[in-house]
């Protein structure tokens, strides 16, 4: 009884405090791998069999997994999805730079920087407090409607701007957590060498901070890679919008599945990479600590 509950309670323990689960699996050897494989096959087999033999499956298949619709929708949705990828890449670069600038301003100390700090905190609080979709609608429809001379009017531009602003506020907080995770003695040491606050941040604190928050930044990547699709509300013909248009003309939802598949093809590898990287980093830290 006692033993069982302790296993249940500290089931994740070995990964944190001792040999990792993966290595214990390895120790179990070929027999363990075989059992894992067989049970997986049986589990999936039963699940698939249950779905495929259910009465409603033909209707579901017709609406969501229709092969001819899939083939037909793929090129259209893929073209739109390519725009999603481009938006993601452009936005991500801008976000990483702007967020770092905001976080650095927020990290400055001393009364002289008070107004700048207030500005940074206000920006972060306001932007984080507003639903991202609202920001997209506000900028994407609002600004072009002003018809200001010399200001871009494309919905795509303003939708992307909204995404960059919103994600910059969140990412600035990620950087800030990283900067605060660097020990105070590092700051003191840098200042004692005569470095200014900005030099201390640039050469000493930020490089260490970024290393500490890379997993969190990668999580942001995954999230943004999907959220770029939100600009579809502005009528931008990216992946989701293209799928919607196809659905509207055919009354078949397979095109949405196409879009989902495309997003998964990108986001799953990034998520796996994030886990792998975090894991590797933690093991390295343990190696140094021990």
């Amino acid at each position, binding site marked *: 009884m006692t033993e069982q509950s302790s296993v249940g309670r500290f089931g994740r323990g070995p990964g944190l405090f001792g040999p990792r689960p993966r290595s214990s699996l390895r120790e179990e050897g070929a027999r363990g791998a075989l059992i894992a494989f067989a049970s997986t096959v049986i589990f999936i087999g039963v699940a698939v069999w249950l779905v495929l033999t259910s009465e409603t499956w033909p209707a579901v298949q017709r609406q969501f997994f229709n092969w001819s619709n899939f083939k037909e929708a793929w090129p259209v949705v893929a073209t739109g999805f390519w725009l999603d990828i481009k938006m993601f890449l452009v936005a991500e670069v801008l976000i990483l730079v702007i967020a770092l600038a905001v976080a650095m301003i927020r990290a400055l100390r001393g009364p002289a920087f008070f107004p700048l700090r207030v500005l940074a905190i206000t920006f972060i609080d306001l932007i984080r407090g507003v639903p991202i979709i609202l920001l997209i609608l506000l900028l994407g429809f609002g600004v072009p409607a002003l018809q200001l001379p010399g200001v871009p009017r494309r919905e795509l531009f303003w939708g992307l701007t909204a995404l960059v602003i919103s994600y910059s506020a969140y990412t600035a907080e990620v950087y800030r957590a990283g900067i605060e995770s660097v020990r105070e003695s590092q700051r*003191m040491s*840098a200042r004692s060498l*005569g470095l*200014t606050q900005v030099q201390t941040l640039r050469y000493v604190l930020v490089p*260490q901070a970024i290393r500490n928050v890379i997993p969190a930044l990668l999580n942001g990547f995954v999230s943004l890679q999907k959220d770029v699709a939100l600009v579809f509300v502005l009528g931008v013909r990216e992946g989701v919008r293209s799928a919607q248009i196809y659905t509207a003309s055919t009354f078949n939802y397979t095109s949405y599945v196409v879009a989902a598949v495309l997003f998964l093809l990108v986001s799953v590898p990034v998520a796996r990479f994030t886990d792998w990287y975090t894991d590797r980093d933690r093991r390295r830290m343990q190696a140094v600590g021990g």
Partner: protein
Amino acid sequence: MSVPKLELRNVQKAFENKVVLHDVDLAVEHHDVVCLIGASGSGKSTLLKCVNLLYPIDNGQIFIDEDEITAPGVNPNQVRQRMGIVFQAFNLFPHMSVLDNITLSPRKVHGVDRATADARARELLAKFGLDDKVDEYPDRLSGGQQQRVAIIRSLAIDPELILLDEVTSALDPELIAEVLNVIRDLKADGMTMVIATHEMGFARDVADRVCFLDAGVILEHGPPDRIFRDPQEARTQQFLQRIIEAGRL
């Protein structure tokens, strides 16, 4: 009589409501080595950090040569360019090689070009027997090596004086000697130093003057022989008695 290299007049420092430095007067002559001794919490470390302007003082004045560094309007970064400070916990930058740790301040603060800064760093590393560690990262060095690099880093800006804040306290006993030998070399070169230390044997050996701090005041000071053999104050006697009982003197 000449002006001291470093002088503290009536320096007071409190953290929130806890007074750490009550009223400290101290004059350090050129090329002198002054050791600060006293129990933990007596204010040794705070005193050094006040001199480096890492902590603003509440009252009093601090001078280097004739310049008051605590005067309003003085740029702390410029003051810090005149002195080096080494801390208890090494505080090397873990993401930089030994060479970059040493050359960061010369290059970015003092405007020395990379080639010159590198050459100077290599020269210092060779002098203290660390020339094979130029490209290593701090986590690959022993504690003693890290602390020697930290001292070299403070030397690389050609400081007028060096402050050492219990630089051997975080070291394993067998690594202490290599660091103390570096400090002896600096003394031989005529470096002005203020050293907060728990190593009484070392203080007696290297100091020109020893100051005993107790509850934020310099209770007693003088040549090491007199302080260690014939302390006048009861508190000094008690402190040294405890040190002797602990087998540290």
